[in-house]
């Protein structure tokens, strides 16, 4: 195969030990990568005193104490913050699906004056760093007395400002055959009916990608929740975790790890359930 005379960098040399060696290497590397995560899971099940003394993964003693202690460590039980996060995330997902698909349908299928101008503006907003708008947005929401409500967090989604999803759906709708729309139109369907009955059902893959990524981003989002939610009564999971970290100032690792695992749970669940769409979404769009 390869010319034996020239030295070849290790990475590209055919594995002499064959596939087994390659698998062992990959599994080893994967273990190193996931080690911190696995260690956090195992530590969340260990009694406080042995967490530091045991870098190993298998707990010599198992306890759920960290979970019960962490659950009640803050002003409200942790389920309260999970609920707050769930409400914001749920509304964001639905809002993004509705608002972005409406805009995408217009861009992909309808013609109207200044269309390419507006489309260019929409693409431009994808690149825009969020920080350019946060100061005036904060001032605006504070003038409207909406700090410590969910509005600053969900309003941008209701108004389709996640332009990437609009773009994603435009690209997707463009691949759908126009004959379907035309057939429906001949049958007397209006734009609204075509949108609901013809285009949307065919858009499922793009909608799923949008839903999954909106969920994960909103669930993980920290900066806007930190800015707009200052009252422990409407803290979300990330903000609550941060308060926990500050309050316990590095003393109670076990409960903190336990709550961190709970915080990651929904993302992990989505990862397992929507893996196919997730991977495809990243591969084709660069969303991550």
């Amino acid at each position: 195969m390869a010319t034996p005379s020239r030295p070849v960098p290790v990475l590209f040399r055919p594995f002499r030990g064959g596939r087994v060696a390659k698998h062992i290497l990959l599994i080893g590397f994967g273990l190193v990568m996931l080690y911190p995560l696995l260690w956090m899971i195992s530590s969340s099940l260990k009694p406080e005193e042995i967490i530091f003394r045991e870098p190993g993964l298998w707990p010599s003693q198992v306890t759920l104490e960290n979970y019960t202690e962490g659950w009640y460590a803050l002003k409200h039980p942790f389920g309260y913050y999970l609920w707050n996060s769930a409400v914001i995330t749920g509304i964001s997902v639905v809002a993004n699906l509705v608002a972005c698909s409406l805009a995408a349908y217009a861009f992909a299928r309808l013609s109207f004056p200044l269309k390419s101008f507006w489309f260019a503006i929409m693409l431009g907003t994808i690149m825009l760093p969020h920080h350019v708008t946060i100061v005036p947005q904060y001032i605006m929401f504070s003038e409207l007395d909406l700090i410590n409500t969910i509005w600053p967090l969900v309003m941008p989604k209701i108004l389709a400002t996640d332009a990437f999803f609009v773009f994603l759906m435009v690209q997707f709708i463009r691949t759908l055959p126009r004959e379907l729309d035309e057939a429906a139109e001949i049958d007397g369907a209006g734009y609204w009916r075509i949108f609901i009955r013809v285009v949307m059902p065919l858009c499922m893959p793009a909608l799923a990608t949008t839903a999954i990524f909106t969920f994960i981003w909103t669930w993980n989002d920290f900066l806007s929740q930190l800015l707009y939610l200052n009252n422990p009564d409407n803290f979300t999971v990330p903000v609550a975790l941060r308060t926990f970290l500050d309050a316990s100032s590095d003393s109670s690792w076990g409960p903190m790890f336990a709550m961190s695992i709970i915080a990651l749970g929904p993302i992990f669940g989505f990862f397992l359930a929507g893996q196919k769409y997730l991977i495809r979404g990243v591969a084709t769009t660069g969303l991550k």
Partner: protein
Amino acid sequence: MTEVSVAVKPGRAVRPPARGSHRSTKRSRREARAAYLFLAPWFVGLLVITIGPIFASLYLSFTDYSLLEEAQWIGFDNYVKMFTEDTRFTNSLWVTTVYVVVSVPLQLAFALALALVLDRGLRGLSFYRSIFYLPSLLGGSVAIAILWRKVFGADGLVNAVLAMFGIEGPGWVGHPDYALGTLILLHVWTFGAPMIIFLAGLRQIPASYYEAASVDGAGKWRQFRSITLPLLTPIIFFNLVLELIKSFQSFTQAFIVSGGKGGPADSTLFYTLYLYLEGFKNYDMGYAAAMAWVLLIIIAALTGVNFLASKYWVFYGDTK
């Protein structure tokens, strides 16, 4: 873009001019009205959440504004202060630059290397893909940042492992020389997402190229340099632009790992973290707005330079 009118009059523009036949004018008016209705939420969002605030922040960047008193017009003072007096600002710019310049190439190198190993005919590909992708999904969360702070703490996991080899490690996140390094490591750890994009790119390269090259006696390294790398340059470019833009805006990790202060000794004071502190802790909104505009200019310039430079190294096979 096909419309009924196009079918009738193939020679004309796609959108019939305003003085077209009565029928098509009525139809296109109806269509435009529908389009603007569908776009209504987006238009409002564009105006209220995006464009309005952009101009407002440009205005604010020339003022002294604390949210409590009226904004005072001070001209370029904020910008001048940034680059001449405020050493914390220049430091934060430096810290962020180091972070971006070190972690992005490292992350992409890992992503590409793993994508190459995983590429063709390997059993369990989807399993490995998932394992390596998982950190990308979780990496931006507060929970993982907390984990990182603990793992690299003075009595954390890393030092516990080092102790088994008789090495006494420093308190990584508490030491100005190492704290930024731990954040870089966290970023590199999330190489899974660009890896998946690389994998998708590799799949586009026809296997026949490799077969032909191998018939001509090209070894693996030669094939990589002459086939894989050139054909992958558009994907490398895409990942590079995306990661640069994203990592310039990193916030959560530095915030959590440094306890919201950017320490020790401002060694992890990321640009956006400093912006947050100035705007929302010191309530110097004008200054924060000016910082945001400088960030916008940096990102725009960087992206522009990237696109210009891409002419010299990105190879688009299909534009020949």
